[in-house]
C-alpha cells in the first residue's frame, strides 16, 4: 500500500468523525450569530414562527419526493433510451436531455406556469406546473446518471454474455442493469439533494414552501438573520438526513472488495 492509499484509507476510516466535527463547528458558528436574536426582544417572534416554517419544510419534502419519483421513473426510461441502438429513440432522448439541461430551471418553471397553459388554453394550478418542471428537470439529469451507470459496466461483460449465447435483452436485464443501478447510486444521491434545494425556486410562482415563508417573514419583520439562517439550517437538516441514509444503502449494496463506496 503506497502513501496515497494509506491517506485515502485513513480519511475513509475517520470520515464520519470529520463530518460530525464540521457539523458541530457550523452549528456553533450559527448559534453564535443567532444568539442575540434568539434571546433578545424579537425572540418570541422568531420562536413562534418555527411551526410556520416547519409546515413549509413539510411541503418542501412533499414536493421534492414527488419530483424525485417523477424524475426517477422518467429518468430510467430516458437513460435506457440514451444507450439504445435505435437512432430514433437515441436522438429523441438526446434532444430531450439537451433542451432541459441547456435551459435554466427557473425559466422552465415559468414556461410551465404561464406559457404552456396559454398555448393549450387550459388553466392549471401553479403547483402542478412547478412539480412538472422540477420532475422533468430532474429526469434529464437522472437519465444521464443512468446512462453513465450503464456505460461504466465494462463492455467485456456484455460481450462475454453474448458469446455464451445470451440474447441482447436478457444480457441487459440480468448482467448490465443490476450493476448499472449500483454504479448510479452515488450520483443519484447527489441529484436527490439538488432536487430538494431546487424546490425553493417554486416560490417565484406562488408555492408557499419553506424558502417563501422564511423570505416573507424576513421581509415583514426586518429580521433577515434568524429567518434566512433558520431556513438554511432546516434545508441542511433535510439534505443531510437524505444523503446519510442513502450512503447507508450504498454501503449495504456495494460489492465487497470492489472498492467503489460512498
Amino acid at each position, binding site marked *: 500500500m503506497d502513501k496515497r492509499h494509506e491517506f485515502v484509507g485513513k480519511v475513509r476510516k475517520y470520515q464520519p468523525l470529520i463530518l460530525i466535527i464540521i457539523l458541530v463547528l457550523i452549528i456553533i458558528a450559527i448559534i453564535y450569530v443567532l444568539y442575540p436574536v434568539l434571546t433578545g426582544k424579537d425572540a418570541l*417572534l422568531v420562536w*413562534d*414562527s418555527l411551526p*410556520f416554517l416547519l409546515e413549509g419544510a413539510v*411541503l418542501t419534502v*412533499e*414536493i421534492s*419526493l*414527488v*419530483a424525485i*419519483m*417523477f424524475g*426517477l*421513473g*422518467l429518468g*430510467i*426510461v430516458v437513460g435506457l433510451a440514451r444507450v439504445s441502438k435505435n437512432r430514433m429513440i437515441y436522438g429523441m432522448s438526446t434532444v430531450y436531455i439537451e433542451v432541459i439541461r441547456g435551459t435554466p430551471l427557473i425559466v422552465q418553471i*415559468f414556461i410551465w*406556469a*404561464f406559457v404552456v*397553459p*396559454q398555448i393549450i388554453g*387550459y*388553466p*392549471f*394550478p*401553479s*403547483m*402542478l*406546473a412547478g*412539480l412538472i418542471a422540477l*420532475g422533468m428537470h430532474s429526469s434529464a439529469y437522472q437519465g444521464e446518471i443512468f446512462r453513465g451507470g450503464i456505460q461504466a459496466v465494462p463492455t467485456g461483460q456484455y460481450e462475454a454474455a453474448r458469446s455464451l449465447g445470451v440474447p441482447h*435483452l*436478457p444480457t441487459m*436485464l*440480468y448482467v448490465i*442493469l443490476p450493476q448499472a443501478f449500483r454504479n448510479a447510486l452515488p450520483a443519484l444521491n447527489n441529484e436527490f439533494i439538488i432536487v430538494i434545494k431546487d424546490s425553493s425556486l417554486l416560490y*417565484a*410562482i*406562488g*408555492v*408557499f414552501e419553506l424558502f*417563501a*415563508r422564511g*423570505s*416573507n*417573514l*424576513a*421581509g*415583514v*419583520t*426586518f429580521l*433577515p438573520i434568524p429567518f434566512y439562517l433558520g431556513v438554511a439550517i432546516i434545508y441542511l437538516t433535510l439534505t443531510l438526513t437524505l444523503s446519510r441514509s442513502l450512503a447507508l444503502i450504498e454501503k449495504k449494496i456495494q460489492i465487497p472488495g470492489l472498492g467503489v463506496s460512498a
Partner: protein
Amino acid sequence: MSRLAMLVGLVAAVLIAAGVGAYLIIIQSPGGGGGGSAEKLVLGTCADFPPFESVNITTKKIEGFDIDIAKEIAAKANKTLQIVDMQFDGLISAVKVGSVDLVIAGMTITPARAQQVDFSDPYFGGNQSVVVRSDQTGITKWDDLNRSIKIGVQTDTTGDIWASNHSNIQPLAQIVRYPKFTTAMLELDKGGLDAVIIDSAPAKSYTSSHPSLKIAFEIPTKEKFGIAVKKGDSGLLKLVDDTLAYLRSSGKYDELFKKWFS
C-alpha cells in the same frame, strides 16, 4: 422475462406514486384546481403591500383591505376563498391563463394592463411615495433623486413604470427592480438602496411599523386601483362591481377603510 416485468413495474410504480403524490399535494394547495371552479374563488395577490395585503406576523395568515374585499366577493358568489401569493409581475399572466380567478393586489388601472385583463370599477385611489432611511437628509424632493443613488422598486409596479419613464431620474440614478417589496425594504434598511418608490398607503404602513424608515415625499400620481379578471369574464366582473357598489352603499367600505387605514 420476469426481470423485464420488474423493470417496467418499477418505472410504472414510481410514476404512479409520483402522480398520486402530486395529486394529493395539488388538491391541498391554495388554488389547487386552478381558477374557474364552482366551489372556490381563487385570488391572486402579492402579500408584501400592507395594509392592502401582507402576512400577519402573529397569525402568519395573509390579511388586509384587499383580502377583506375578496372575502366579500367570495361570500356574494357563495364560494370559498383561496389565496395564492405570488410575485407582482406574475399576476397578470396568472389571471390571463386562468390559474387564478381574480387579482386584488393594490393594482393600478393602466391602459397597458387594461389591454391584457378586464378591470372593475376603481375601489381605491392613491399616490406614490419615496421611502428613505430615517437618517437620510439629502432626499426631500423629486430633483434629489437625480443623483448617483440607488432606487428600489418592485418589478412592473407603477413605481417601476414611473421611475423608468422619468427622464430626470436617469441616467444618474440606478433603478434596482425586486420581485417583492419586502426584499426592497430589507435592502433599503440594510443600506443597499437609497430610496424605494412605493404606493403611499403601504409606505405609511412600512414606516410606522419600522422607525428606521421614513417617507421623504409624495409623488402625486393620482392612481386608481382596480380588481382584475380574465378578459371577457363578464359574469365575474359584474359580481365584483356589484359587490363594490354594495360595500359602498351599505357603509361596509368605510368600516373596512377605518379598520385598515387608521
